[in-house]
């Protein structure tokens, strides 16, 4: 069964999500995403359902979305259900990255190609 990544983001970062989803699909990885546009009143229900089905969660954090509490909710939900969670940080200086994100292993958008190659290798080996 193909490795499945769920991308969680704010609706403000939809362009980034679509670019990321394309790159993951090219690498042979299944992608699902939540951009804050689906069921805006029930983000937790949507996130929890997606978490159950995903092998890894990407959470997009940009200058546009760093104040969105739903991103931190998704991180907590992923950590709580023992899913691998990878924050993707875009356009933030290190000092701007929230301490919660710093406590996890995060990937900068500029390093994303290398991470996707590693991910594809890891999933093929599994």
């Amino acid at each position, binding site marked *: 069964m193909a490795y499945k990544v769920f991308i969680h983001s704010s609706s403000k970062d939809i362009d980034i999500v679509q670019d990321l989803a394309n790159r993951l699909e090219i690498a042979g990885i299944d992608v699902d995403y939540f951009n804050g546009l689906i069921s805006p009143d029930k983000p937790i229900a949507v996130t929890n359902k997606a*978490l159950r089905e995903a092998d890894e969660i990407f959470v997009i954090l940009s200058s546009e979305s760093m104040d969105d509490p*739903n991103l931190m909710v998704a*991180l*907590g*939900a992923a950590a*709580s259900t023992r899913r691998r969670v990878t924050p993707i940080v875009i356009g933030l200086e290190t000092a701007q990255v929230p301490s919660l994100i710093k406590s996890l292993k995060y990937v900068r958008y500029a390093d994303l190609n290398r991470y996707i190659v590693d991910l594809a290798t890891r999933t093929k080996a599994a």
Partner: protein
Amino acid sequence: MKSNGNPDSYQMAKSSKRQKRLRYLVFISHSSLDAWVAKAMVEKIEALGAECWLDEKDLTGGDVIAAEIIRGINACYEAIVLISPNSVKSQWVPFEIGGARAQHKRVTPILNNVKPQQMAPLKDIKAIDLNSFDDFLAQLKRRISEMRRKKA
């Protein structure tokens, strides 16, 4: 605690095991800027015979914060979230909400000078105003009794 063959020790081990089984842990999510209010809530909850997970007493130097928070959530029966002008700006409070709700734990928002809609991830849950905290305590007391009756 393991028994060492001594009858007193055996009774103590048995009693400790029973206490652990009947332990009712409440996870307290709050901003560190609201520590005084959180501690006051803890005192009232512990007076009912429950225990509380509170970052200030349960986190120690060198702990990996996110991992310890998740351990606290795993162990709790329910969580309360103190929603205030400080916690709506916090990163850790929504992280804890996500952790508790992903495990389908009961989460009660306690509002302190904010409107329920100010904490978006909890707007589908009935909140209790801090001034009505006694109502929450009465409900909590019933849940503790019910749990202990089932496990006794």
